[in-house]
């Protein structure tokens, strides 16, 4: 069976788009072929900076013939209807068959669709794919109207079978498919004639093109780590950078260079960020973790083994790091003399036009940090001071240049300002957690300021009605709320959010985030609802403790059955109350208990309530629930033996009051009405 090779050769495709484009090419072409009846054995797609490639194996040589039947109008239908049917089928009246149908005679068209040669189908599918390719951004060039990610230069489209290769006739906007391509732009620019994928891949490799992005990445990583290892060093892993760099070269050549001694005193984060952001260099560290060298990936071999290229790169790096060093030294001068001048300067920086300046914001974070500090065991004055300098680095030159170093620089600078390591750490840690997998700070000062910063942000944006909607959350408020939740829960701090947050809608937002958070931890949504409905649910630690105990309780046999018993009691009570228009909340009188089961229930309630109250008082939910569980058998027995709606109104009322007592005992632990099933 034939194999198909497609290569779309263009000017340089952005690295970040290549992998996706290869997949799209494979999907669109194979889907199109299969839809037209051409099934295949296997398909693989590749991308380099200049080409998208698709190899399909064992493709049908032609699509199978199909007989298509289409039902038309009734034979006695108006002429117009028949004309329309003939037009849509492309047949003449004498080619139709009249068949009997339930409703009379109906015209049928039987269309024999002969198989079509693969080449014809491929040409159509490839053209359609190119014209409708889902590039994130595409462009026109020259005088043409075709759109591609960058100018498309040539197309290889070769169908090969039994050693014979044929070009699939195909033309798009003046580009005619052929069986020739080009090798590496600089090292092997000559035209190459190819006869199929294996031939193509082999010839390209000789022409200094590594087709597979994974192979290029492996080569880069292996060469880089080997080179570093040979000198007792280690390359700092960066998968994103590796993927990007693999998309910038067809023939990766790894070169390792030194960082001038003058820059080795810069913080490693600065070296790494500058090298990565500006130069796409990997950092290479020594045993002590200091970054001492860099790895760059060139796109070619040279007669001088990369000496010129490396010298150039080194020079560019030195210029970049001179800038960084200049910023660092300027910043240190400010940090050592008057770090708070940076905070003052933030009064000129708008945080949000409705919320004022960054300095205003820092002021309110300071106030809030003072209030939170005692709760989390931090010194009040230290918390205020830490909040004041935590964002000072936003005024520094380094953070202006590399915004992603905010906090990291702040810690260095606060140390220089001799504010103490714990205050300095706040600058970095108060931004944490930055995502669901990021660490949560544990040092009390950091927790105080991190909470104050996030809560203040949320209060502010709620006040100006800038809440997240759908997928839009430009100020990362969901992340802030989740951060608060994790900060509270992971350090077991106890306070009601309402102490600081008066907006019920914002409390609701915290609850929504908490639900998502707890659901990810396997807690049932109805359990969360049952816990949320209880008092003090703005105390997140309490809330989670209750939910966890309830989840466990419900997983036991007693728990499940008790819930059923509770619900039965609750429902009967509710119905009676609705019907009678009164609340049965008087204490039931044990003297009116008739049966043993009823008496036993009174006794069981006395005993359980005596345990539940103190347990709840002590927030020992598990104990409260196991006390509650002892009610299961008496409740079941009671319902088995006793008719609640007794003839005697006195008995009925007493029993309804008894149901209320059951319900109240259970409800004091969690709102079991919210439990499903």
């Amino acid at each position, binding site marked *: 069976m034939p194999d198909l090779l497609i290569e779309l050769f263009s000017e340089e495709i952005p690295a970040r788009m290549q992998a996706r484009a290869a997949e799209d090419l494979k999907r669109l072409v194979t889907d199109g072929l299969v839809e037209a009846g051409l099934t295949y054995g296997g398909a693989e797609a590749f991308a380099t900076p200049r080409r998208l490639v698709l190899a399909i194996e064992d493709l049908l040589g032609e699509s199978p013939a199909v007989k298509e039947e289409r039902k038309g109008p009734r034979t006695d239908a108006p002429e117009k209807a028949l004309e329309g049917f003939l037009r849509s089928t492309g047949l003449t009246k004498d080619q139709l068959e009249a068949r009997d149908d339930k409703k009379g005679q109906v015209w049928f068209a039987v269309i024999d669709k002969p198989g079509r040669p693969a080449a014809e189908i491929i040409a159509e599918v490839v053209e359609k794919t190119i014209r409708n390719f889902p590039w994130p951004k595409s462009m026109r060039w020259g005088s043409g109207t075709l759109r591609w990610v960058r100018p498309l*230069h040539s197309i290889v489209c070769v169908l090969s079978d039994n050693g014979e290769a044929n070009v699939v006739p195909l033309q798009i906007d003046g580009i005619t498919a052929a069986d020739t391509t080009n090798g590496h732009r600089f090292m092997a620019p000559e035209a190459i004639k190819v006869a199929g994928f294996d031939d193509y891949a082999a010839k390209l490799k000789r022409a200094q093109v590594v087709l597979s992005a994974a192979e290029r990445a492996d080569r880069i990583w292996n060469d880089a780590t080997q080179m570093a290892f040979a000198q007792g060093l280690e390359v700092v892993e960066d998968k994103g950078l590796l993927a990007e760099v693999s998309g910038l070269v067809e023939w990766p050549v790894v070169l390792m260079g030194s960082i001038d001694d003058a820059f080795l005193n810069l913080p490693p984060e600065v070296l790494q960020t500058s090298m990565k952001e500006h130069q796409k260099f990997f950092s290479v560290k020594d045993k002590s973790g200091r970054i001492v060298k860099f790895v760059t990936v060139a796109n070619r071999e040279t007669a001088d083994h990369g000496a010129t290229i490396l010298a150039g790169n080194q020079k560019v790096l030195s210029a970049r790091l001179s800038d960084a060093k200049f910023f660092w030294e300027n910043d240190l001068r400010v940090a050592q003399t008057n770090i708070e001048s940076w905070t003052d300067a933030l009064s000129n920086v708008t945080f949000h036009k409705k919320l004022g300046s960054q300095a205003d914001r820092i002021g309110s974070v300071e106030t809030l940090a003072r209030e939170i500090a005692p709760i989390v065991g931090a010194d009040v004055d230290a918390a205020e001071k830490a909040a004041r300098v935590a964002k000072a680095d936003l005024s520094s030159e380094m953070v202006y240049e590399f915004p992603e170093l905010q906090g990291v620089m702040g810690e260095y600078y606060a140390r220089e300002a001799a504010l103490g390591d714990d205050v300095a750490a706040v600058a970095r840690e108060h931004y944490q957690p930055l995502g669901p997998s990021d660490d949560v700070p544990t040092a009390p000062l950091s927790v105080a300021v991190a909470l104050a910063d996030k809560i203040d942000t949320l209060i502010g944006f709620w006040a100006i009605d800038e809440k997240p909607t759908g997928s839009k959350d430009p100020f990362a408020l969901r992340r802030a709320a989740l951060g608060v939740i994790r900060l509270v829960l992971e350090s077991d701090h106890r306070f009601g959010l309402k102490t600081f947050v008066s907006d019920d809608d914002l409390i609701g937002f915290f609850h929504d985030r908490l639900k998502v958070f707890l659901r990810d931890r396997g807690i049932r949504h109805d359990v969360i609802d049952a816990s949320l409905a209880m008092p003090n649910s703005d105390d997140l630690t309490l809330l989670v403790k209750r939910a966890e105990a309830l989840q466990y309780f419900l997983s036991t046999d007693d728990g499940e059955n008790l819930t059923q018993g509770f619900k039965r009691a609750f429902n009967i009570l509710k119905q009676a109350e609705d019907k009678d228009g009164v609340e049965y909340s008087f204490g039931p009188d044990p003297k009116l208990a008739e049966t043993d089961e009823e008496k036993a229930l009174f006794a069981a309630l006395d005993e359980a309530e005596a345990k539940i109250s103190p347990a709840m008082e002590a927030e020992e939910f598990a104990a409260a629930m196991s006390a509650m569980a002892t009610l299961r058998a008496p409740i079941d027995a009671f319902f088995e033996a006793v008719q609640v709606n007794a003839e005697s109104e006195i008995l009925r009322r007493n029993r309804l009051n008894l149901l209320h007592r059951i319900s109240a005992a259970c409800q004091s632990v969690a709102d079991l009405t919210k439990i499903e099933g």
Partner: protein
Amino acid sequence: MSKIDRPTSFQEIILRLQSYWGEKGCAVLQPYDMEVGAGTFHPATTLRALGSKPWAAAYVQPSRRPTDGRYGENPNRLQHYYQYQVLIKPSPPDLQALYLGSLEAIGIDMELHDIRFVEDDWESPTLGAWGLGWEVWCDGMEVSQFTYFQQVGGHDCKPVSGELTYGLERLAMYVLGIDHVMDMPYNDPQTPIALTYGDVFRQTEQEYSRWNFDVADTDTLFKHFEDAEAECHRILDAEDVDPKTGQRIVMAHPAYDQCIKASHVFNLLDARGVISVTERQAYIGRVRALAKACADAFVTTEAAGAAA
């Protein structure tokens, strides 16, 4: 060692680019006689990228970025610098090869250097323009921007122009192996009166840095901005047919001069630090409105290929 003949001065690099692009068929134009932030502002690019008429031009454009002033001290940051600009419409299929040829012409040996095309989407909010292309890296250094214009002044570019922009000082420093721009030979270092870039520009960098940052009168500048904006609209509001000659004379270029002026005044105000973050967007929007109006006018003219 190298088969490539290396230039020895800043001006030689410029001359080589001029003759290279001249030989490749570009009209070698002169710089535009107004203060602009980049070579793109020259009407030979902004306006000529519009319309259907073929165009091929190359020129040096002195460019001013007041906020980049460093009193002549920074090794490569200047408030006044030169760009080399090439614009060809429609973009030829071998534009990349032509571009690489220009690098060889100024002494970059492709056999020894590593040239890479790194994604760079170009957008000029003030010109209402965007295009796709690359930063071109030579041994890790950005030496040019390469852009296929898709839209200018809000109009689709049909055909598409290919634009090349070389930052001349940085490129020349690299080719000549110079670490500080002020040390770069401006003319042939072997001549009796050898001049460095610093001899020519150090003092002006100091003078303009001081003026840009601290002395320029902001009230006057704000007034200049308003005046230029008003004049631009006034020019475009004039009747198409000139009552004196009876001919249709749409004054797209004089109006565009006012747009350029407004843009530069905005840059000066920005350097003086008197434009807040919110106002910034509003000012950029006002300049863009002028650019669009000028583009709207230009596309109706003969130079844009509109039927006379």
